[in-house]
């Protein structure tokens, strides 16, 4: 009996996932535990392992497809088994594949101008039927065209003009591009500038055009949307203030020495700063809040969001009830979460922007001296942590010395907080940093 592999549901709010990589193709033999495909939600990526042994009988989706959760992605079974019963109505495979075959056949027969990418005719772009037919004939990707018709609709003339701009391509180059649509060339070195096989390369595409067009990953889309909305829909501004870092640097040195002697928790400056922020938040509950337009949601507990830089993009997991944790506990929890984010195995529930009540973003490691972090709405503030720089300080009696200062940049939503409150809060964070006590 064949087994259908479904798109798992990753978290209650996840409706669909995107297949980022298909590791197996139709006809491949798989064993239990083999990776079948990678997929990502809005917030994290995952890999699906095979629960059974057998042959991949059918793939219903391809890389890049957005798959509703619980849909059949592929079927594994014994060679020759029927798979029709697993076909889902969500699967785009059949109809699109047919359309593509048809398009390719027409192109084979009638190509004059050349195709550089797979056909994507039929996207949700406004296009006249005549223009569409011509685009298919000419092998043009209409998503790259600008329409000159009413409302930006692509008309026949637009397709014709675009086709004329295409370089002439030699028969050899055309066959090579057919095999590998990524091959492009902006300049032709052949007869009357005809593009030759040797002119084609994937690298040249970058050199000649100077850019690549890459679709956004799901995570990128989410970040883009969230950041833009944040700046559009709130009244953000940032206060910068310094904290004397001598105290935490001293603690850090003690920790380092202790770790060398076997102390288990390598508590970092960031751990201490977050701990200090939590203590300050306890004293300023109005900062530990969400602004909901006509009301403020003041949290009893502190759910600390921490910005983590990963290969896939910025992720902000949350440490729930962070106010219950001791400094070493906080340190452990933060390291676990950051690692999970980088691995892509973090629980998506912890990534929701409304999961945290306050966020800390630390760019000190990168040497940033001052920045304006963007609030993760509906939170009312975010603390940016900068690098430590020496600054002159009056030590009393007219004695000045250079003291290491940690820069703090607090962005707050002026709809929720006033400047005085925000200033007092960030000052409180500085005070907590300067007076943090910790014995290893």
């Amino acid at each position, binding site marked *: 009996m064949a087994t259908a592999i479904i798109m798992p549901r990753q978290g209650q709010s996840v409706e669909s996932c995107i297949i980022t990589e298909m590791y197996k193709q139709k006809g491949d033999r798989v064993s239990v535990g083999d990776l079948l495909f990678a997929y990502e939600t809005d917030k994290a990526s995952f890999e699906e392992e095979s629960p059974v042994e057998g042959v991949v009988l059918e793939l219903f989706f391809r890389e890049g497809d957005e798959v509703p959760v619980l849909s059949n992605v592929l079927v594994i079974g014994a060679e020759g088994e029927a798979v029709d019963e697993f076909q889902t109505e969500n699967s785009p495979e059949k109809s699109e594949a047919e359309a593509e075959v048809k398009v390719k056949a027409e192109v084979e027969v009638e190509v004059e101008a050349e195709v550089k990418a797979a056909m994507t005719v039929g996207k949700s772009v406004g296009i006249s039927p005549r223009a569409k037919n011509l685009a298919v004939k000419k092998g043009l990707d209409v998503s790259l065209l600008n329409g000159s018709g009413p409302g930006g609709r692509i008309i026949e003339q637009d397709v014709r003009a675009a086709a004329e701009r295409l370089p002439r391509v*030699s*028969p*050899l*180059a055309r*066959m*090579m591009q057919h095999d590998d649509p990524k091959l492009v060339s902006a300049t032709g*070195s*052949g*007869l009357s*500038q*005809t593009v*030759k*096989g040797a002119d084609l390369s994937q690298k040249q595409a970058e050199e000649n055009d100077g850019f690549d067009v890459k679709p956004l990953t799901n995570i990128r889309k989410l970040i883009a949307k969230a950041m833009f909305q944040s700046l559009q829909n709130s009244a953000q501004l940032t206060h910068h203030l310094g904290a004397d870092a001598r105290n935490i640097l001293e603690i850090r040195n003690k920790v380092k020495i202790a770790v060398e002697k076997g102390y288990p928790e390598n508590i970092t400056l960031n751990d201490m700063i977050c701990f200090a922020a939590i203590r300050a938040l306890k004293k300023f509950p109005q900062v530990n809040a969400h602004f909901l337009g006509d009301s403020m949601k003041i949290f009893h507990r502190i759910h600390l969001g921490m910005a983590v830089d990963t290969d896939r993009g910025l992720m902000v997991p949350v440490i729930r009830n962070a106010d219950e944790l001791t400094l070493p506990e906080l340190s452990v929890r933060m390291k676990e979460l950051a690692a999970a984010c980088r691995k892509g195995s973090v629980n998506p529930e912890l990534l929701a922007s409304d999961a945290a009540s306050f966020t800390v973003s630390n760019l000190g490691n990168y040497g940033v001296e001052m920045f304006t972090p963007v609030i993760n709405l509906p939170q009312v503030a975010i603390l940016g942590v900068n690098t430590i720089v020496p600054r002159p300080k009056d030590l009393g009696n007219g004695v000045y010395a250079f003291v290491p200062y940690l820069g703090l940049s607090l962005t707050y939503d002026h709809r929720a907080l006033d400047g005085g409150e925000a200033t007092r809060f960030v000052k409180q964070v500085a005070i907590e940093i300067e007076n943090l006590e910790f014995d290893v």
Partner: protein
Amino acid sequence: MNDNNNNTRSQSPPLGGGGVDLAIIGAGPAGYVAAERAGAKGLKVVLFEKKEVGGVCLNEGCIPTKTLLYSAKLYDNARNAEKYGVFAHDVQFDFSKMMARKNKVVKKLVGGIKAKMKTEGVETVAGEAFIEGRTGEGIKIVSGNQAYQAKNLLICTGSEAIVPPIPGLDPAAENILTNREILSLSEKPESLVIIGGGVIGMEFASFFNSLGTKVTVVEMLPEILTGMDPEMSAMLRDLYTKKGVVFNLNSKVTEVKGTEVVFEKDGEKHTVSGEKILLSVGRRPVTKGIGLENIGVELFKGGIKVDEKMRTNIPNVFAAGDVTGFSLLAHTASREGEVVVNNLTGRPDRMRYQAIPGVVYTNPEFSGVGLTEESAREKKIEYRVASLPMAYAGRFVAENEGGSGLCKVLVGARYGEVLGVHMLGNPSSEMIYGAAMAIEAEWTLKELEEVVFPHPTVSEIIKETVFSFWESNRKQ
């Protein structure tokens, strides 16, 4: 500006005709073609030539040799006419009349070029040109007591026969000839030793063999006609061996003693003697005595270094033809000249060398274009090859009684693009351009298959060979 410079300046002739758009030094196939094209496109052009327009090609190379070879072919055909049911008795030739006709042909064509230059408004200067240097407005070129200021300069000074440093070889001796002297012989030599079995050597071997001269070819490499398809080179060598030419391959000439040529083969010394000795071991670019150093033109392997647009390292200074040192063919030179003019007149163009036909005008002719199997292997290009005897073309059988020949087509292993076509047989020189077009356009077998070839012609052999790729696929 110091006094010395002023002195130098005052010695140099004043600008005569004023400024020109393009000055061309050397009126060979690169220079005169470039001058003609540039003139036609409205550029003001001055063309310098110290000898005769037409260059080596027209005066001492392509044209005179082909004229003589045609006489030889007629003679051969007349003697062999019996095979075709035609009897020509007492067939004779007159060497001096052959030479006279050759001179007449050359003169006519030289006159033709001169007329063309006039038509296109090109100023032709008979005399040596010397590049004096750069001025604010361009490059100053002096010829005799005239000075010219050129916005652009095209150098096509050509090449000269290499006289190898062989002990005892006196280039001035009367019996030592290059392509130039051999074309001025007044009598047919009884015997001829040809040092170098390349294109020039083989064409003269063919000519004198037809006339009954005892010809011996001494070639250093394992096969004659390096660069051509080796299988066909060997076939051609066999044909000429049967006709009486003696070939010594892998033979290095170590000494020349009067009429004797001493060479080493397989570690042994051999001697061959000939009334005349022809040196045809290669040619080298002429870069001296024209003032290249005055503008700092960079050289590469003895020739002028150019890029794909025939630009030298100096702005507005170009070079084309043999002086660049790599193709040494008249048709390459002409095309290179055209590339220069096209770019100067606003048409982007670049020189490509992958489809330059090479022809040896022996009888039968041997033509090739593109990659040989050897060069494909060298470049690690995966290819498929098909070959057919020329006798697969009916017209060839009709016109070549007892004749043999071969057509070979190389295509890319994956896409079937035409990589090379090689033919041994008449009149391959007249049809090889078709293959050059296919290679230039990067046609694959598919495109070539759709072309209609006239029937009956020898050219059909190309189509037959192309279809034989299917045959060979089926057999596999």
